[in-house]
């Protein structure tokens, strides 16, 4: 393989990894605070791409307002899902919560089929993102640069919030001990809502960039990325933000490189994530950056 080709695959892998990372963070944040695997997360991601599609297609709004609105709508959806499906089960056994999230996932998927239709839609890409840069003889779409840059900026903001602000401190406190957090006059429900808002916002940013990179939208498009990003979160060590990012990049790069180096195996592209999951669960069940937890689902 020529170096030029390799570079193209590398850039491609990094941008796919960035998208996975954004989605994986949502799983890890919610798991950290509720000990819940939020199966509806992939579908929230799907809704963001459709929201972007419809707002863009209306052709009244400038692209950036359309994207911003789509992100805000997705964020609100995430908060509503928590309020409707998870909050009433706050004191219920965790398995009920898990089942509720599976139900929520099916509900959103099927509503999407009803309202958006099952036929694929094409995401309209604003012209500014639809260019190709040529460096020497390497041709790279601008998107492949923009995606990792936006991801890094968002990550920096998120880590700043979690580690340097009072709300972030409260998030970390709630994720270790609800009751002790309540004794500090922390409104636990508010912190959980905030966590869902952050997770859904990141999923929406990822979703819109996903729509531009892979512009064919279908109502079940969130399922596979959802499962893969859950795997990414587990590989990195669920509950750990940096771990989720690491897992996302390993998965994204791994998938692209597998196809690049072994084109015969390209049909097994999706299987890569699951093989990686099995391998990690055997070798280091708590994930690459995870701590030893007493119990897991």
């Amino acid at each position: 393989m020529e170096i030029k080709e390799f570079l193209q695959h590398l850039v491609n892998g990094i941008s796919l990894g960035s998208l996975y990372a954004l989605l994986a963070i949502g799983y890890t944040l919610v798991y950290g605070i509720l000990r819940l695997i939020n199966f509806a997360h992939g579908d929230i991601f799907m809704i963001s791409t459709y929201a972007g599609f419809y707002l863009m297609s209306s052709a009244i709004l400038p692209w950036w307002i359309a994207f911003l609105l789509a992100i805000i709508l997705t964020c609100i959806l995430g908060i509503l899902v928590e309020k409707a499906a998870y909050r009433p089960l706050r004191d219920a056994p965790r398995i009920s919560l898990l089942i509720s999230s599976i139900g929520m996932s099916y509900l959103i998927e099927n509503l999407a089929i009803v309202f958006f239709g099952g036929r694929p839609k094409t995401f309209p890409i604003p012209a500014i993102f639809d260019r190709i840069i040529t460096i020497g003889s390497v041709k790279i779409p601008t998107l492949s640069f923009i995606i990792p840059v936006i991801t890094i900026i968002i990550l920096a903001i998120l880590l700043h919030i979690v580690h340097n602000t009072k709300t972030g401190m409260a998030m970390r406190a709630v994720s270790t001990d609800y009751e002790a957090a309540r004794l500090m006059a922390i409104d636990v429900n508010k912190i959980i809502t905030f966590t869902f808002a952050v997770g859904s916002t990141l999923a929406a940013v990822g979703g819109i960039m996903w729509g531009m990179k892979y512009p064919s939208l279908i109502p079940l498009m969130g399922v596979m990325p959802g499962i893969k990003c859950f795997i990414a979160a587990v590989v990195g060590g669920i509950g750990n933000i940096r771990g989720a990012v690491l897992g996302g990049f390993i998965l994204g790069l791994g998938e692209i490189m597998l196809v690049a180096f072994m084109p015969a195996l390209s049909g097994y592209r999706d299987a890569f994530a699951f093989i990686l999951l099995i391998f990690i669960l055997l070798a280091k069940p708590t994930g690459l950056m995870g701590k030893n937890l007493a119990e897991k689902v």
Partner: protein
Amino acid sequence: MLIINDLNVHYGGIHALRGISIDVPDNKIVSLIGANGAGKSTTLRSIMGIVKSTSGEIIYKDNDISKSKTKDIVEHGLALVPEGRRIFPDLTVVENLTLGAYWRKDKQGIQKDMNWVFELFPILKEREWQKAGTMSGGEQQMLAVGRALMTKPQLLAMDEPSLGLAPLIVKDIFNIIKEIHSQGVTILLVEQNAKAALEISDYGYVLETGSVALEGEGKKLLNDDQVRKAYLGEAI
């Protein structure tokens, strides 16, 4: 300051508190003693709104707080040092203390109280940036007390502050309780270490299977035959 009137609490099918009435006057130290399962912790947890009572009143400064949320109760000036310390192990000492002051907006007051906590527990100042989970049991207990003080309580409830600590450190903890009390904080103390608790208490209640079996001034209870036999392990 705090008056509990005929409080009943049910846990699932268990009648954990059976009509308890307790009076904690302003600026006093009051102890609850009794065996395991007598309802001491449940009393403290229902005061803080963690456990909801089925009937009865909890009057704090003329307001019934028995239906209030924990958050509001803390903001009204009640704090609990929970059993088992329950500090946030992944957070640093300073972060733990800062969370104690989560609801407060008075930056200067917070800094002042933080300094006060460091004065009370110099070891916490030394370990300022250490993760709380890496400290010893005694240090964690000090942090738990310091964190509760950061909520700016007028009444501080403590659940078994001496549990599982070395005798020398237990002595320190009781001295600290006296020191905190001398700063004008009312103390409600739950202890299995009945002797040490009653020695520093103005008033004490002995709980048995969810009700008050005996009450009286701390010194009086210390000399009570029944108490000495049952809780102080003395042969008479």
